[in-house]
């Protein structure tokens, strides 16, 4: 134990504390995010934007343009909201561009394990971006979020491929839902 206060010689401390009087400049979550952002290693097909400027990094957007696979030619916009509990809590990610994809639903929810059940504080924003990129290269119909898309992918792969390509380039309606062309914008 350490003696912090001397009762008898009163408190010299008040002066020291008053002179110091500074505010907390940032949350521990932001401090960690600065490290992630300074080391962000984006694949060529991914770009990032900080809509609130370089000093407000807790909310940002990335645009992903798959350079191979079924979704090549499309551009998909994601928002990242990093909670102050980061990295104990994972970033909240949504896909704003409507997409016909077995693991992304029409509200933009994404079924990616490291965003929920497999999140660990050692993971980084870079890891999440790579995870999203992978989701477009290898959609997984086994554990779907958009069941219709998953069934189509499993039962009629050729038809699925056609619908994906049509929806991202020209836009089309699939089963009653309209998918505008995927140009990296907010849909709907």
């Amino acid at each position, binding site marked *: 134990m350490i003696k912090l206060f001397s009762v008898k010689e009163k408190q010299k401390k008040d002066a020291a504390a008053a002179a110091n009087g500074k505010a907390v*400049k940032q949350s521990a979550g932001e401090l960690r995010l600065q490290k992630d*952002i300074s080391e962000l290693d984006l694949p060529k097909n991914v770009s990032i934007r900080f809509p609130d400027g370089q000093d407000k990094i807790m909310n940002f957007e990335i645009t992903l343009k798959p350079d191979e696979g079924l979704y090549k030619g499309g551009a998909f916009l994601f928002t990242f909201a990093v909670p*102050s509990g980061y990295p104990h809590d994972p970033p909240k990610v949504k896909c704003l561009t409507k997409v016909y994809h077995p693991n992304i639903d029409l509200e933009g929810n994404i079924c990616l394990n490291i965003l929920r*059940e497999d*999140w660990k504080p050692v993971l980084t924003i870079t890891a999440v971006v790579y995870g999203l990129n992978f989701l477009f290269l290898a959609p997984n119909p086994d554990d779907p979020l958009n069941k219709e898309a998953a069934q189509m992918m499993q039962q009629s792969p050729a038809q699925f491929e056609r619908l994906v390509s049509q929806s991202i380039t020209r836009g089309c309606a699939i089963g009653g839902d309209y998918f505008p062309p995927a140009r990296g914008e907010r849909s709907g």
Partner: protein
Amino acid sequence: MELEGRWRDLDYLLTRQGNVVGPGFEPGQEIREFLQDGCRVLVVGAGGLGCELLKDLALSGFGNIDVIDMDTIDVSNLNRQFLFRMGDVGKSKAEVASARIMERIPGVTEKPLDFYEQFHVIVLGLDSLEARRYMNSVACSFLEYDEDGQPDLSTVKPMVDGGTEGFKGHARVLIPGVTPCFECTLWLFPPQTKFPLCTLAETPRSPAHCIEYAKIILWPKERPDDTFDADCEEHMKWVYSKALARAAEFGIQGVTYQLTQGVVKNIIPAIASTNAIVAAQCTLEALKMVTMCSTGLNNYMMYVGTDGVYTLTTPYERDDKCPICSPGVSYAVQPTTTLRQLIDGLMEDPDLGKHLSAPSVSYGSTNLYMRGALEAQTRANLDKPISELVDTSDNVVLHINDKRLVSAMKIRLKFGGSNGSMET
């Protein structure tokens, strides 16, 4: 006027020399006077722990207690938050709690205040990691180290923290610069379990899966214009009815309103007795820390009341690279030094350089120079003098990030003298 003999039992402890006491314990009436008049304690949170803390502190001789809490009183608080009555439901916790304590123990003044600097000790009665990390940043932001890397004791803002869950709890002492801070031991807090979205959407197997589905997937879809509020009964009932319907569809049993609340609010059940154990232990440690009247807790005590009573007292260790409480490095610069010169200087420094390959520099939330995504936006700062980038009248702490570092390195700038690291 103080009642003669009121503090008889406490005075035995404070006015008599002991064999098992803290360093420099000086028994005498002055200690009680200091507790009563000089020492200022802040209690953060006026919930289950907070109510107990206020009572315990007041009955341990502390005369100046402030309490802050943003919350209002709910019926489900009354099973443990004994300063509140049925008629208080809806009122501010901080206001009611301080009024009730003052009523009972005269001489104690309590008022809701929001300044952290003036307090000698901060006692935390919080229920979230997020709030703890915030208070940790606050307390550690006061911390200064001397030239030998020893904490300047006049800048140490000690905290005592408690937490409970059912029959289990913990009490810990956080002396920034001396014992680990929350950030040093973040691993003590297990992450919340989250179910995969695809399980919720396609293969629900448990009532909790149905509830989460209603909250996470259905709410935004069916009520996109309403922000979900867990404290709104109509919202909770909506989630409950949707979860019930989903469970019926899949043949899953066990969705109840109580479970729905538990899952949606992530309720960690708190009961009066455990709160009381933990709060009293925390108060005892605050008393020891201020008076040295007995040996202090080093630095974490766990209490488990489920199978008999089991306690474990453990000295956790500091993380010497902790970006929040570690001393960092003093580094001398001129106000006219450019950011580029500073970075080059750090890279060439015999001690620091070996940890750096491509450093980025932040000043609080201000990103002065960032590699990676913000390089283009921050490049122009490289040729600006430091004096243009930071407030040189303040204590300037920069955070250096680099792939070679596990976490940000703190650099404390000292203006004047020749450039370079001042650590020996």
